[in-house]
């Protein structure tokens, strides 16, 4: 197990290197550079300034030289300066963007998990009932609905038609004072984006939970539990549920990083200042350092969660052995 863990951890390093090379290469191939952003709206900016700054930042060198230098700095823990904001890129992302993303994605994750496990379970143990059919249809809707359109429609209903029953977007309203009102205000701003963002995962996990449960309740030990006279409730919740949640945990591990990067559409619709939007904006204005630190962080998350999902599975299921 330890050997397996070490081997997996060692595999992460070359994978991250290749990913960073691909991303950096693509970003560098993209025409225009950060200096263009500085020149824009600055009439006193001369060609000499341009050339000097390009040389200063090393942008006149081929992209692989730039990559090599970037890599060297990163290994010393320096992710460079955001040229949009003039402050360290890593600090900007982790102080201002990451907490918002964790809040939005974390709550979406929680909502999806808390709804999908009972919904999938009940749907499975009452297979072919009206409840089961409606859950299945709702699942199909959840995986088919474009998130951004769903978000826009939510805004229309709850913010426009119901005259500001819930805010149309943003992080918080200005001018709210007091701990409790601020808390309520933040919560109200979270409701719609969390519903929109969790819809896809909610549907996928419910469907997965349902089929996982359907397989488990056919197994011998469940029959045994019934045969020895346990109540249906005990059979399902004490015996079957534990084993059917296991594969879902793996799936959740694989889905978590998606919630971090895939929230661009939700963040755009709800004007939510999170990581997805930060990456989007950074790519558009060639702010390489911000784009790279966020992208590398998300790639690291993907790999870490893949590994954690495998490990969690091994810990929860003694039959799984990794060599």
């Amino acid at each position, binding site marked *: 197990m330890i050997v397996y863990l070490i081997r997996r951890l060692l595999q992460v390093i070359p*994978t991250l290197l*290749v*990913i960073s090379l*691909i*991303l950096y290469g*693509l*970003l560098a*191939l*993209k*025409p*225009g550079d950060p200096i263009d952003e500085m020149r824009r709206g600055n009439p006193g900016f001369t060609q000499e300034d341009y050339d000097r700054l390009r040389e200063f930042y090393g942008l006149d060198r081929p992209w692989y030289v730039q990559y090599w230098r970037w890599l060297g700095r990163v290994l010393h823990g320096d992710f460079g300066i955001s040229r949009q904001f003039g402050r360290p890129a890593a600090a900007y992302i982790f102080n201002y963007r990451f907490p918002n993303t964790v809040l939005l994605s974390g709550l979406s994750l929680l909502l999806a998990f808390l709804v999908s496990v009972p919904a999938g379970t009940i749907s499975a*143990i*009452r*297979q072919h009932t009206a409840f089961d*059919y409606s859950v*299945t249809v709702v699942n*199909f*809707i959840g*995986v*088919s*609905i*474009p*998130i*951004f*359109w769903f978000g*826009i*429609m939510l*805004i*229309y209903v709850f*913010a*426009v038609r119901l005259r500001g029953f819930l805010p*149309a977007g943003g992080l918080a309203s200005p001018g709210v004072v007091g701990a409790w009102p601020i808390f309520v205000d933040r919560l109200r701003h979270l409701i719609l984006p969390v519903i929109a963002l969790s819809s896809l995962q909610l549907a996928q996990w419910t*469907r997965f939970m*349902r*089929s996982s449960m359907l397989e488990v*309740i*056919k197994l*011998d030990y*469940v*029959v045994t539990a019934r*045969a020895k006279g346990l109540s*249906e409730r005990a059979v399902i919740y004490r015996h079957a549920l534990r084993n059917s949640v296991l594969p879902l945990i793996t799936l959740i591990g694989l889905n978590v*990083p998606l919630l971090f*990067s*895939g929230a*661009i*559409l939700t963040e755009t*619709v709800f004007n939510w200042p999170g990581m*997805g939007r930060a*990456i*989007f904006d950074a*790519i*558009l204005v060639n702010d390489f350092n911000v*784009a790279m630190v966020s*992208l590398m962080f*998300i*790639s690291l998350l*993907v*790999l870490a969660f*893949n590994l954690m999902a495998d490990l969690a599975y091994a810990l929860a299921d003694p039959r799984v052995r990794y060599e």
Partner: protein
Amino acid sequence: MNDPLRSVEPLESPALERSTAGESYWRGVWRRFRRHHLAMLGGVVLLIFVLGAILAPWLTPYEFSRQNRRNMFAPPSFSVPADPTLVGRCVRPQVLFLKCGMHPFGTDDLGRDILARVLQGGRVSLLVGFIAATISTILGTFIGAVAGYLGGILDSVIGRCIEIMLSIPQLPLLLILVGLLANPEVRLAVLLSDALGDAKSIVIIIGVIIVLSWMSTARLVRGQILSLREREFVEAAKGIGASRGRIIFRHLLPNVVSIIIVQATLMLGEAILIESGLSFLGLGIQPPAVSWGNMLSRAQGFLYYPNGVFIALFPGLFIFLTVLCANFLGDGLRDALDPRHYSTL
């Protein structure tokens, strides 16, 4: 459910199912597919959408790009206004029951007929969806089959590639690729716009979707081929001296065709969602071309206008219905093509 014995009964056996009165495999597929009402419905609706997209320019009195500043934000209605300035100019006076002046889906912020735009947008969205799904599935199948059958170093290299592609955050990668190919300073982009003109953004988006979506098919096919290649019929084919290409394409792939068809159907929905998301962000299909996604890109700003919601409602509804139908169809096809897989509906 309370009868414990019922739950240990085996599912319907594929062998029994298939041997009904000596019917062929495909007749059995059709029989099982017809039982799946939602899938039938999905297929029929998709067919109607495709026909609507093909016939788009001839189905409405209005042309999709014709503006009428006198009649902006008109609500959906089948009545013809008395004031001729509100009617505006039509290409033809009447199509079936649709008269010039009727806007069944309303008009947008420039007074353009939303129905005409939805139909025209469907052309682009469905075209992108179908082409991207088809090519991505073929590419994924090819890569997966070759990796699975040949094995060895090639297989590990392809496996690592798939893993890396799946670890890179998808949407940002899409953004970079689209930005790259849309920029006039990149040589490939210049080449593309010389060759394609206005259709460039469509080709770019198709290409980008393919680049980012072949992996799941490749994985799936590889897994299937890995188990199939150990079977006797492959040994037999080798024994009579069949070439590797012949074994892969004539003996192995026909056995995974059902999985590939299902995958292609699901990929159709996926591709349409990716296209609409990118176009919504302003990076996909560029105006004056119109797709369901780019119709939505400015729509959010009009939510507070009277009747402004229809600009957002209809294109999104059509994306949703198309993807929903594709998913119903895929689910039905999975059950019909592979009886061992039990239905979720």
